């Protein structure tokens, strides 16, 4: 299972105010709050933690077929600039984040060794680009590849009855879109 999240930093700056009362307290652990407030760029760390939590949540939600909003319970630990661990209900999620001036991208997995494929695309073309990628990988025609999505669930891609994706995660925010695929 994989889960991803992308944050368009210019949109985050515009549409959210991490300094508003309650924002940190409701979503971040005491330890995360301390690190944020001590960071040279608190804004970036807020959204890095947030994307780690969201990516890990997406793995958990797929795995357990549940939905909820409990960011504070996803406890983040930074291992290096890119790598982190998120602990939720005694389960560990491994995260890798890419941070640029413009966006933060995080991919979460259950197994550190998992190699998923991720690609940045324009938000409106995500579905089309996934099908084109799957055509490359499987040689089935993109036109014949269909997305099947149970209500409230992450999408899966099929050719007829053949499942082409073991796990698929999609995220978009502002100008950025991204998909991550794990093949069966």
């Amino acid at each position, binding site marked *: 299972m994989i889960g991803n999240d992308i*944050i368009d930093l210019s949109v985050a700056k515009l549409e959210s105010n991490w300094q508003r*009362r*309650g924002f940190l307290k*409701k979503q971040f652990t005491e330890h995360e709050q301390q690190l944020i407030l001590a960071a040279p760029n608190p804004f970036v760390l807020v959204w890095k933690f*947030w994307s780690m939590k*969201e990516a890990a949540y997406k793995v958990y939600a797929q795995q357990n077929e549940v*939905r909820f*909003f*409990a960011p504070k319970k996803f406890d983040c630990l930074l291992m290096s600039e890119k790598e982190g661990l998120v602990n939720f209900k005694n389960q560990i999620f491994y995260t890798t984040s890419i941070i640029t001036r413009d966006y933060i991208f995080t991919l979460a997995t259950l197994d550190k060794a998992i190699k998923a494929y991720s690609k940045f695309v324009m938000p409106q073309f995500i579905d089309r680009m996934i099908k084109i990628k799957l055509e490359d990988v499987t040689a089935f025609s993109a036109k014949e590849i269909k997305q099947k999505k149970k209500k409230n669930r992450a999408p899966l891609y099929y050719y007829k009855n053949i499942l082409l994706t073991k796990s698929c995660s999609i995220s978009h925010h502002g100008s950025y879109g991204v998909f991550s695929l794990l093949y069966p």
Partner: protein
Amino acid sequence: MTRKELITSLKKIIKPYVQDQEAFKNLSEETDFINDLKINSANLVDVILDVEDEFDIEIDNESMEKMLSVKAAMEIIETKLAKS
């Protein structure tokens, strides 16, 4: 406060975060914040903080976990208001 008044105040709170205006026009108790209104999950906390300010209530973590739809939000607000 009647349910109609409650849904009206709630609509005013969530309006700035809604990305699907068509779904907002057809809002009902069954409307989901993320799946229907396309509110970004990064803004869910703003909805919750705005609800706290507007109704002068505190939404605990347990209630917050469920606040993904109009119906859930209304139930939580009603329960908290009844206690205050």
